[in-house]
């Protein structure tokens, strides 16, 4: 390798490493898989809690429709993205299958609840979103418990 090629190679190596950082890595052990499940639950809970705060703001007539629509839509996208990433991981053993099933169920529940809020917001049902509050709280609690268990 020539002296001039070295900086270019270093930059390319860094670029590949950074790009790889954004990919879903494989899990070789149950511990690693459990850790990744905990991280996924944490991210999903964050998205659900964001929507819950949005609903709280709507309850007090503090947000506009277009803003809430974007806020909830982004949370829904985030849930869909984490679910897709988690599902693409190979569970290393049958024990890991149990974690996968449990988390998948929670993620579907979270996505369905947030989708319900998004549909209501885009139908102009502002000021009437408190009916979703309990479901959002429940799924956030379950995700929290799952995260604690797998952490």
């Amino acid at each position, binding site marked *: 390798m020539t002296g001039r090629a070295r900086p270019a190679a270093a930059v390319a190596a860094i670029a590949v490493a950074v790009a790889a950082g954004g990919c879903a890595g494989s899990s070789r052990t149950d511990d690693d898989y459990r850790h990744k499940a905990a991280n996924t639950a*944490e991210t999903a809970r964050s998205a659900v809690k964001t929507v819950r705060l949005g609903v709280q*703001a709507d309850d007090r007539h503090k947000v506009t429709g*277009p803003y809430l629509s*974007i*806020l909830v839509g982004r949370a829904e996208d985030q849930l869909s993205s984490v679910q897709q990433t988690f599902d693409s991981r190979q569970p290393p053993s049958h024990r890991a299958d149990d974690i996968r099933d449990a988390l998948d169920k929670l993620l579907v529940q979270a996505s369905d609840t947030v989708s319900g809020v998004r549909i209501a917001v885009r139908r102009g049902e502002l000021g009437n979103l408190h009916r979703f509050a309990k479901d959002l709280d429940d799924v956030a609690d379950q995700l929290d418990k799952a995260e604690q268990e797998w952490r």
Partner: protein
Amino acid sequence: MKKFLALALGILTAIGGYLDIGDLVSGSLVGARFGYSLVWVVIVGTLGICVYAEMAGRIVAMSGRPVFDLVRERLGPRAGLLNLVASFLVTGLTLTAEIGGMALGVELITGVNYLLWVPLAALVAWFVIWRIGFETIERVVALLGLALVMFVVAWFMLRPDWHQAVHDTVHPAVPQQEGRPTWLYYAVALIGASMSPYEVFFFSSGGVEEGWTAKSLPEMRANVFIGFPVGAVLFAAIIGVTATVFQPAGVQVVNLAQTALPVALAAGKVGLGLLILGIVAATFGAAVETAMSCGYMTAQYFGWQWGKSVRPVRAARFHLVVLLTMILGTGAILTTVDPVTVTEYSLVFSAVALPLTYFPLLVVANDRDYVGDRRNGLLANTLGVLFLLLLVVVAVAAIPLMLITKAGL
């Protein structure tokens, strides 16, 4: 009275123009994840930008020439070229993030997907650069950016635990659930946000555009030493509102809509509307500044005619660089890359380029040929050297920290 008004307007402009997408994203992300434990970095970064912006302003006022021109002359074309390439790439990446930020802001008002707004936002920004006078651009946009003061209003309305806020700022500690490398990675990002290289290029080139002389020094210093720190209070308020609302709820900030939520919860629709106006104005202003900075640095290095004080036909190459950079930035955002992710990377790469920007300034500010008897005193040199050492450490650590933490995961 007229002088006082001009001074006040200059300070307000400095405050309103202080924040950009990098501050909005990094501030809210850090507040939600790390609470007040990284506010000290904002304080250090603000002191750093004040020290070096004052040097840049003094150089312009005494020599009548922009910083990049002097860097090439003083350090030679090779060192100047290295500086140009690094600064151009980082500023171009920042421009990309600002265009995305503008479109995201309009999306929050309209509810229409931000990608549809990207070309229009970029076109308006380019048209403003092409047709509107420098002072008008700077003042109108920055004054609209003052609407971001809603972060401060909301911070007070949310009634945070001030004792805890001061304690965590003065005694910073890594939060229990976070690793030290991640905490340090975001400290690097905050330094990148506080001391963005383009701020110095735009500030010094603006000084040439406005014809600063030695008589302008008091006004320039008032802008720097009052305007920038007050602007930094807005930055701290972003951390404050997100630390108050999101950290206890365990919410991670991943998009700009979340950044506005604490203000909505505190100040309602009016507060939210003002804040979004401020976000659009701040990112619009920063997009204009970064695009112009790309034109400034290139034209100044190659010795082309540049600036808004001459007709576009006489500064054709300057305007061509601005236009091409704008097109590239717009194209990059239209690939659907996440603007928030672009912002995060732009901050870290800014941190890497910081010594290349600030070291030449320190050299030129000590050269009697350029600044005469207004060269750096003991205080400016001590602070300048200390900050330069810090920036070298930050620059060396930035990429390894990015790799170790997988960009802050």
